[in-house]
């Protein structure tokens, strides 16, 4: 390739880069604004100041004096991690089962499951509440995660990905004397690492951000989660925007970390696990 050609092709990329820079700016700006707002007074935020200020400590102090920040963070972490682990285990077993041992009856059952995906969560809230209240599961971690641990979407995702799992391996493993459970734990899970990572990110974020169900079932102050805490910050007659953004910052950091750590696997898992 001559020099001329090279610079011509580079020039052709200029509009693409400009476009990408603009898009990156649009995606990153809200995050920047959140951080800047957390360091300013409420009045400054409302006046549109976007340069970071020196009010962060004050906002933070106000936040912890009004709201149980550490308790809520702990609750959110605890419930979200627990939900993620249990959900991954249950949904992957289900998805694996539907695909590997599939027959007509299971296909029918799977369609019913997909139909269940169409029912919005709010529609099932009253009967769920009734059941959970009678079973004494209000204010418990089990109550929090039970409706979330087996979702049709996750089962479908695992089933789709299990389709790419080579049947030969299973056959070989059976000949080598592994039982079905061992095949699942020793062969399937390690091969499907990236699917698990993608599923973990999605489930963790859903559990972390879930609001309506926890709000109904977690009725104790000590069971408060981060989204509930944020909601409390905007119910007053006066909104302290600086403090609010400080709270939002604390609520966003964990999901950001989870995403960044599992970013590579997430992308792989979404596009297909087995190469």
């Amino acid at each position, binding site marked *: 390739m001559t020099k001329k050609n090279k610079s011509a092709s580079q020039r052709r990329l200029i509009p693409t880069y400009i476009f990408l820079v603009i898009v990156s700016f649009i995606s990153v700006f809200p995050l920047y604004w959140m951080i800047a707002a957390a360091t300013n007074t409420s009045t400054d935020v409302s006046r549109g100041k976007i340069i970071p200020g020196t009010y962060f400590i004050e906002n933070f102090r106000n936040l912890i004096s009004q709201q149980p920040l550490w308790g809520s963070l702990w609750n959110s972490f605890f419930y979200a991690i627990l939900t993620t682990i249990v959900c991954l285990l249950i949904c992957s077993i289900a998805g694996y089962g539907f695909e590997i041992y599939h027959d007509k009856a299971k296909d029918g059952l799977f369609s019913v499951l997909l139909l269940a995906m169409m029912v919005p969560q709010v529609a099932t809230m009253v009967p769920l*509440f009734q059941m959970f209240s009678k079973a*004494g599961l209000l204010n*418990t971690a089990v109550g929090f995660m039970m409706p979330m641990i087996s979702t049709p979407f996750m089962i479908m995702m695992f089933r789709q990905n299990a389709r790419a799992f080579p049947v030969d391996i299973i056959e070989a493993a059976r000949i080598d004397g592994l039982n079905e459970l061992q095949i699942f734990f020793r062969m399937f899970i390690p091969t499907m690492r990236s699917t698990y990572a993608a599923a973990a990110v999605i489930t963790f974020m859903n559990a972390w951000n879930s609001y309506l169900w926890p709000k109904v079932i977690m009725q*104790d102050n000590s069971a408060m989660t981060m989204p509930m805490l944020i909601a409390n910050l905007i119910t007053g007659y006066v909104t302290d925007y600086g403090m609010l953004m400080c709270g939002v910052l604390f609520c966003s950091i964990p999901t950001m970390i989870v995403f960044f750590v599992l970013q590579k696997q997430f992308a792989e898992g979404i596009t297909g696990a087995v190469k």
Partner: protein
Amino acid sequence: MKKRLLSVLLVGTVAMSLVACGGGGKKADSGDSGSSADSNKLTVWAWDQTFNIKSMQMAADEYAKDHEGFEVEIIETGSDDCQTKLTTCANAGDYSTMPDIVLMQDNSYQKYLKSYPDAFTDLSDMDVTWEDFGELKQAYSMLDGKHYGVPFDNGAVIACYRTDILAEAGYTIDDLTDITWSRFMEIGQDVHEKTGKYLLMNQATDGDLMMMMIQSCGANLVDEDGNAFIVGNEVVEKCVDLYAEMIEKDVVKLINNWDEYVQTITTGQTAGVINGNWITATLMSTEDQKGLWEITTMPKVDGIDTATNYANNGGSSWYITSNCKNKELAMDFLASTFGSSTEFYDSILPETGAISCYLPAGESEVYNEPNEFFNNQPIFSTIVEYSSHIPEFTSTPYHYESRECINTAVGNIVDGADKDAALKEAQKTLEFKMTE
């Protein structure tokens, strides 16, 4: 790697079963999550840490002085969340998770009282002189002559003006006191011409200003039987005309949401704000505008016999649920604090800014103290006085629905739609919503 993943999953499963047991244990410790079984403790749902919750906490501390061991557990619950929870409990037919006392918005309460009458306790026999609260305020929490709530937070409407901007245009607060909307419009146009600022702003997405105008005439969007009454309603038509004219003449600036509303105040783009008096807290958070604001009455609608300069927007009251295990204690607690104690109201005012609906409280020294932010006006006693003049009107459980209907109609009219057609549409929509 395989082993590590496997072990993580196994640990997870074990953790889950542990939590299942642990969770059960925790439940047993804390007892029923709803109303308190402890004979000297009440659970309360309320929102706003610096306002309602703090007031309730102070009331509990006050009451505990004469009642040893008394305490309240306040669970922070936003107004909307409280309604969601109440609806869920009611539909599930299980009130056992409700607290003893719940705070509810005046404008939404009637709907819940009419839909779920068995969720609340009749408080008519409580040791409270009901006449000491404004008539309208009582009406919000009454049904068939029975009292269900103890009025708390005052929602009397005030008009706040930036005196520096008014002075720039050659006006004082007296020029805006007890005036009509037509006069307001004249001044507003003048102010806009001279200073480039608007005399008033309103959220285009909520119909609060329209509702305040209509209700200041003792009218509402329903007739005496509670049916939708928009078409042929003289007051509504007059208010719609005035409102549309104010937008057209650059007297009122339309803005999109609450954040922008606050921004318009903090950046000094508006010379005035008309809203429930709780707006003072937002004004006062902009410290560099100290001394520049003053309050007065809102304008009244021209050409309507029943028109006044007073209205209500917002406010809330305390309710005792039917799930309360210790109703006598709850009633005595509310009666001796929120229901009858001027000392109590005096003590919460400087701490929380919560202005009483209890009319005798307005006469106290604390209420008459000048407020520096409002150029040394004694705003608290003034607000309590305003609240005694607010005319009563036929209340409706469909307050928010009617507000939405009229706001949509007004928005369309401002955008050039035919007035009669828009109002007819609003009437039809509201009638439909009332069947839901």
